[in-house]
């Protein structure tokens, strides 16, 4: 009886399994859904970091957006110009050259330069600190240093420097913009990789108010606009900040000799390698 039962059980289980297998096989033929092969092709060559820099939810979302909704093929910042070319080729378009951008923190106000007004003891995130009376820092525009951008970076391109102010490692930065969206103070901004300097201050106050909160705050004195290269700097109305015209100048090593507050930061190879190590 026992051997008999085992055989019967095996046969019954085999028949049930085979029946379900056949149903599924038939269903997979009958219910096949056509997927555009271009979506699969694009999805395969995308970096797969799911950084969201293109505006779509993840890489597969972007692949579908390119094919179905006609999204631009050069939106993938991590892939860069190379990938844009391949995507455009798959879509039968011609890609345009896109300048390589990297994100840097536009603040150099360490605690020594802009001390805390009060002691912050909450969750260690910039967004929470920022929402509490503008954060503990004296300068309400300055970097809080709790590392929201560092956590947001999918490529480990940001490292916390002095007092947590992030330092960008240019080789790793793909310009996806995840940190730009993460920073509650909007201090992470994109600059072209080829330029050698940037204005590291986002304080929108006027001279006295700016100077009183940070030792390296831009006082909107306009000296760089007046004495700098012609058309290189333009004052932004209402923001009390000059905006460097990277289309006109890409490097200006003497900037801090003119700027009384030493607001300019120069991107040197040593600083980047020191941050990377």
């Amino acid at each position: 009886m026992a051997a008999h039962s085992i055989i019967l059980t095996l046969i019954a289980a085999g028949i049930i399994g085979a029946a379900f297998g056949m149903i599924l096989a038939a269903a997979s033929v009958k219910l096949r859904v056509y997927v555009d092969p271009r979506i699969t092709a694009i999805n395969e060559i995308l970096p797969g970091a799911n950084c969201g820099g293109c505006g779509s939810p993840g890489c597969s979302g972007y692949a579908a957006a390119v094919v179905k909704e006609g999204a631009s093929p050069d939106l993938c910042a991590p892939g860069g110009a190379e990938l844009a070319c391949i995507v455009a080729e798959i879509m039968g378009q011609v890609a345009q050259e896109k300048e390589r951008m990297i994100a840097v923190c536009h603040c150099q106000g360490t605690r020594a330069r802009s001390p805390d007004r009060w002691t912050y003891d909450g969750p260690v995130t910039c967004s929470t600190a920022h929402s509490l009376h503008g954060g503990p820092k004296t300068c309400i525009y300055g970097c809080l240093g709790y590392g929201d951008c560092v956590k947001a970076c999918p490529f480990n391109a940001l490292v916390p420097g002095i007092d947590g102010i992030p330092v960008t490692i240019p080789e790793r930065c793909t310009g996806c913009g995840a940190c730009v969206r993460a920073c509650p103070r909007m201090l992470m901004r994109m600059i072209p990789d080829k330029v050698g300097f940037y204005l590291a201050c986002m304080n929108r106050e006027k001279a006295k108010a700016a100077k009183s909160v940070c030792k390296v705050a831009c006082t909107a004195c306009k000296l760089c606009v007046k004495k700098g290269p012609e058309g290189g700097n333009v004052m932004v109305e209402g923001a009390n900040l000059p905006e460097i015209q990277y289309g006109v100048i890409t490097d200006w090593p003497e900037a801090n000799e003119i700027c009384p507050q030493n607001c300019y930061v120069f991107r040197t190879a040593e600083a980047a390698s020191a941050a990377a190590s």
Partner: protein
Amino acid sequence: METFGQLVAIVIGVIFVKNYVLARFLGLCPFIGVSKKTDAALGMGMAVTFVMTLASLVTWIIHRYLLIPDSSNLIYIIAHAFKPDVVPEDFNFVSTLRTLTFILVIAALVQFVEMVIRKVSPPLYEALGIYLPLITTNCAVMGVAILNSQKFFDAGGEGAPLAWSFIFALIQGFCAGIGFTIAMLLMSGIRERLEILPVPKAFRGVPIAFVCTGCMALAFMGFVALVKS
């Protein structure tokens, strides 16, 4: 009225008292894996509810007509047509097939449903699609099927179905999914808050999630007295 009372007991019992995650500890891998964000947790919960209800329906039918050795057994009926002298007792072996058949049925069913949804309703597929394959071999779904058959058939699943058992099985499957969803949502809320808290390094991520699960399970112990088991 008695039936209604039984129904209420099943609903409360399955959602709170014997919650599949927090009291029976079934389906912990999606519970820990997909509870990091509320959106994902809700999607997973809905997919599990959907699959549990369907699985309850199908496994009840399979159990009734394939796994009970009586005169309405399909295998017996087919064999009887060819060889009139067989008796239902010859097919006692079918009751040993229960676990195996349920695994097969649920896995095949989920795959099949996924195909159908993909073909028929793309928006529903967008919402549930990525979670469905994760549930094919989920132990909570399997648990619902087995507990249904143990609870709503005579002699621990060996005998004929009790009155109303089909409806009861469906309700139990659906409510098990609801209970799972509630546990998922509670957990995702906790974990979203945990993200920004200064948790000691060794506890970050899954360990603290398990500690929280334990605390929630303790809290759910408070429901025990609600329904007589």
